[in-house]
């Protein structure tokens, strides 16, 4: 028989308590599983928020070489390595089925293997590819890259991501470079860059569709060509041509000038004059007859004329043409800088430049190549073209781009001109 003290609760009260109710009253509402789940969720959310507030995204400031670095001493320690890596734009050097004759001759003469890679499609994309690498303080794998003057190049310089060129190793640049490519406003004294090729952004038109003479930038605003005018989608090019139309010098322009240019460009768009804001495809649109008149790069028009489009005409407008350069430079941490310097000195020789120029057809940085192309290479069409060797009168019309002072300045520019292109 059991002692009375150990009786079941039910019998002591005479009532039966539902066991699930009892459990509910005496045990915590949160099961362990729910507690663990909740805690894990809180922990995850907390750590994410913590991680986010702790780390931003690092900028590029102070990721280049330090002020006061002794580059002369550095250069004196460098020596030829027998190889170098060269990133360039497609179709931008002489080419046969055995590769580039110029590069082959350079390799034979100096015993330097050139890894030539035509990987650059546009400045912004290429910059986006190499900047995280440079930001991390690592080598891009290139000893020479070609970037147009513009915001990306300005950043390369301002970030101290370029090795100052060793001017003692480029006597041929000193001797043969055209005045137009010396001492540019974005790189005074050619400290970091030398021109690979240059070109101008002027106007091209189709003489089959337009029978009057085109002479001024304002012709791009002519209502007679409504829906047949091609403008460029690049905000630097577009903003600059807007200022030319107003008679403003882009190089020294101010944000107030930019706003005025933007107003003029907006009117042009809203009046239905602009067919489209084109990238590189503007030349195809011109050839196809989609546009009759278009902002255009000199070299494209010259090549198009050579391939049979005799009806295309390139004009240097009265207000001037925007003069740009694609520049060779040596990125920081390059492994073969001396070989790259030897290449610069090599391609500034008139004989070498003549070979490249006869193939590339943009504006040649070495005027002395002209007689060689006309004579030895027997190609007077190229030698006599003002789009390859500009006349002094044409050179007077060259206008430099605005060089952004800093990131705020650049963002101001894009915030004014981008809404016109992307409406």
């Amino acid at each position: 028989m059991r002692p009375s003290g150990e009786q079941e609760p039910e019998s002591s009260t005479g009532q039966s308590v539902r066991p699930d109710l009892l459990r509910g009253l005496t045990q915590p509402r949160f099961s362990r599983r729910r507690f663990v789940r909740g805690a894990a969720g809180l922990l995850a959310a907390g750590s994410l928020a913590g991680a986010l507030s702790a780390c931003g995204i690092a900028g590029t400031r102070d990721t280049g070489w330090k002020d006061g670095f002794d580059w002369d001493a550095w250069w004196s320690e460098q020596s030829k390595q027998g190889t170098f890596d060269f990133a360039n734009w497609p179709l931008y050097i002489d080419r046969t089925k055995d590769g580039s004759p110029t590069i082959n001759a350079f390799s034979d003469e100096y015993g330097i293997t050139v890894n030539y890679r035509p990987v650059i499609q546009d400045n912004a994309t290429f910059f986006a590819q190499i900047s995280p690498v440079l930001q991390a303080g690592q080598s891009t794998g290139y000893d020479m890259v070609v970037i147009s003057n513009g915001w990306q190049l300005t950043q390369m310089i301002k970030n101290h991501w370029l090795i100052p060129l060793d001017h003692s190793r480029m006597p041929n640049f000193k001797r043969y470079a055209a005045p137009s490519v010396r001492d540019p406003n974005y790189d005074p004294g050619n400290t970091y860059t030398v021109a690979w090729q240059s070109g101008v952004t002027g106007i091209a038109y189709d003489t089959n569709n337009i029978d009057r003479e085109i002479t001024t930038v304002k012709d791009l605003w002519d209502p007679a060509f409504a829906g047949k005018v091609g403008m460029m989608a690049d905000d630097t090019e577009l903003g600059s041509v807007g200022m030319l139309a107003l008679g403003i010098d882009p190089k020294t322009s101010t944000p107030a000038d930019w706003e005025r240019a933007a107003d003029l460009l907006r009117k042009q768009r809203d009046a239905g004059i602009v067919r489209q804001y084109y990238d590189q495809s503007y030349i195809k649109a011109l050839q196809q007859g989609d546009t009759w008149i278009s902002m255009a790069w000199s070299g494209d028009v010259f090549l198009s004329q050579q391939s049979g489009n005799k009806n295309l005409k390139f004009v240097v407008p009265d207000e001037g043409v925007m003069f740009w350069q694609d520049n060779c430079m040596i990125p920081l941490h390059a492994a073969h800088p001396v070989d790259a310097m030897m290449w610069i000195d090599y391609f500034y020789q008139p004989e070498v430049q003549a070979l490249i120029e006869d193939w590339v057809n943009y504006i040649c940085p070495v005027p002395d190549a002209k007689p060689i192309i006309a004579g030895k290479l027997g190609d007077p069409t190229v030698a006599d073209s003002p789009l390859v060797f500009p006349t002094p009168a044409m050179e007077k019309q060259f206008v430099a781009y605005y060089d952004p002072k800093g990131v705020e300045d650049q963002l101001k520019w894009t915030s004014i001109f981008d809404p016109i292109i992307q409406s």
Partner: protein
Amino acid sequence: MSTKLRTALVPYLLSLPAALWLGIFFLLPLVTILGVSLMTGNSIDGWTLTWNFSIFGDAISTYATQFGRSFLYGGISTAVALLTMYPVAYWIAFHGGRFKSVLLFLLLLPFFVSFVIRILAWQFILADDGIILGALKDIGLIPEDTHVLSTPFAVVAGLTYDALPFMLLPLYVALQRIDRTQVEGAADLYASASARFRTIILPLSAPGIYAGIVLVAITNIGDYLSASILGGPSTTMIGNIIQTQYVNNADYPIASALALILMVALMAAMAVYARVFGTRTLQEHVT
């Protein structure tokens, strides 16, 4: 480890691969773009998290036109793709006979070529003096200044064209699965052809319609290639803005905010859509 604990853990361990997948490929990127969109700064000084929630309002008010246009173009192209592909899918499923696979393959063949190449080809075909418009102008059927490129029509046509296989396949699968005896039964009971279509075929193919619309609308609303290649001034879609802000301007916060808004808007639209025409209706029809 006790048996009880181990038993309790089994479901979690089994779902671990799926959870990891979702965590790494969905949650992490999502939280990251949310974080980036709340940052302020620039490419030189870097960006810091300042919980800048006002960016969402600014982004919506600045780019309301482009958002609206994306949904409009996406909606139209989805509708056109559905209306053109339904008869095609129907015909192949019901009358294709032994050529079904061949017909499907032929329809999908052009889509083995990259979208960019095909759109560039359309740019050539639709040129003002190109093989179509040039010929029509020569025989005087259309006025001399007609153009198709650089118009909203060209952008929507490009979007529609790219959507065709993604619409065709789910429709075909749904139509193919329909039990033919039901259709025959209805015919035996004197249901007219249009009644058979309305009461049997259309409801039973609803899952395919639903899947096709979801697939096509989501891709087309976010597209930027068609607008950048076939469009003109004032056909910019939100995808173009995101691309420019990200690549050209390196303005990561605004690009992230726009991407996030687009995603939320799409999810909301899909939720409404699923609620109205969604799973329940579908299940009723299927079962």
